[in-house]
């Protein structure tokens, strides 16, 4: 069976996030009323229920929350990239992000500081977040 590559399916709520990745900026939704930052993009602030939205650029710094290394080719378009280490990160902005680890030297642990970078996917059709260890100091 022919398997299509999976592309993001942006909508008006999420287009600025995907545009930001292309521009090498990690953009997050911020409530226009109470200032709470949320992710993934969605229409309503779950703190004050406002639908006013602003977009802010994140620091791209966070720590490892969990991870999983994929070995099985569930979809042919990702087979060449296996094994792939998917990491869930607690960003400084108190939301989570999933990225692919592109740092073969690093040994993962909960709390490990990481930095978000960017990579083009699917022949440049869109860009995705990738992760490397944050070696800038700190914890």
């Amino acid at each position, binding site marked *: 069976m022919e398997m299509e590559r999976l592309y993001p*399916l942006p909508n008006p709520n999420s287009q600025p996030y995907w545009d930001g990745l292309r521009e090498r900026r990690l953009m997050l939704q911020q409530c226009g009323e109470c200032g709470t930052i949320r992710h993934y993009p969605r229409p309503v602030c779950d703190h004050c229920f406002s639908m006013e939205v602003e977009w802010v650029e994140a620091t791209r710094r966070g720590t490892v929350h*969990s991870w999983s290394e994929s070995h099985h080719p569930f979809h042919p378009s990702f087979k060449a990239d296996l094994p792939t280490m998917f990491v869930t990160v607690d960003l400084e902005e108190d939301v989570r992000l999933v990225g692919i680890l592109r740092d073969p030297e690093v040994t993962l*642990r909960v709390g490990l500081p990481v930095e978000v970078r960017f990579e083009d996917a699917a022949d440049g059709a869109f860009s995705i977040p990738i992760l490397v260890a944050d070696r800038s100091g700190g914890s």
Partner: protein
Amino acid sequence: MANGLFEKGAITGIGETAYTRGSGKSDIALQMEASLKAIADAGLKPTDIDGVIPYAAGAAVAEDFITNFKLPDLRFSATTPLGGASCVAAIQAAMSAVAAGLANHVLIPIGRNGYSGARIGSRVQQMPQFRVVGEYEMPLGTLAPAQLYAHMARRHMEMYGTKSEQFGKIAMTVRNHAAMNDNALRQEAMTLEDHQASRMIADPLRLFDCSLESDGGAAVIVSASERAKDMASKPAYIMGVGEGHPDSPSTITQRDDMTTLGTAKAAPRAFEMAGITHKDIDVAEIYDCFTYIVLCQLEDLGFCAKGEGGDFVASTNFAFDGDLPLNTHGGLLSQAHIVGMNHVVELVKQLRGTAGAAQVKDAEIGLVTGYGDMGDGTVAIMRA
């Protein structure tokens, strides 16, 4: 209202097709075959069915049952779109319908070609329940349940010291039960070494931590209790039911505590409704799409505290003649992946005393769970 739906309904009929890899039948035919068996088991005619809850993500809709069974007056239909938690959620919905007098006999069918039919692809990405992970995670290449759920298992291991060998014990126990069941796909013995040597799928989940892809159908009938006592087969009275959705239900990675499932909200409701404690449970059929999900549910059900699942698994005998008989049919891991309806059917068999070689002696009260769609949890407690 403390007792809610307590014993307002009972499961009066059960039916299963052969479980295979390559059924040669359509999804709808599998559902009709299982449904006709359940109807016959209940001593009913197809035209007695006046309620139906088709599988929300399946091929058949309520109208298919009206057409195939020439139902004169289907009075109640609903769907419960909770993935693998759907079947037990449907029991709760059926209980509500019979308790309110909306219907007398509600059919809950499921059936699909999970092995020979369509696999993951763009169709799955665009299903409403996967829309959020479909947009933000699947385009990175993390799209299958094993990949998405592995983050929960890894977090549990890192926070609580849970071990792959503890997952292995669950896989081995369930395999042993499958070996006692003629309608189970995997019957060869599994050792801990086999489990540890099975290939990595999505670390920490190995092949033998994953359920099977299989073809088949299963169905049950929920009837109003006052009708159940006069029907053809011994009813399994439903003492308690519960449905729970985790925080951040659509994405595991955004969940504050990714080691807690919706089961943690559902279970206290089900136990309170049933008016029993965990010590009263003679047999447990726990949704086992992955071994880790069983361990996590044992915590969220309250058999042990959060974080103690690893030690609880290591110290408990889950065999049919052990401390807490678990998945006595072989489960999704080794019997077949029939979206947990095979768990419901098995619990009813256990309470009737017709479960065959893995019959739990004097089983009077049992529990069945569903789990799915990134963390929804459902629980039903039944008695003979």
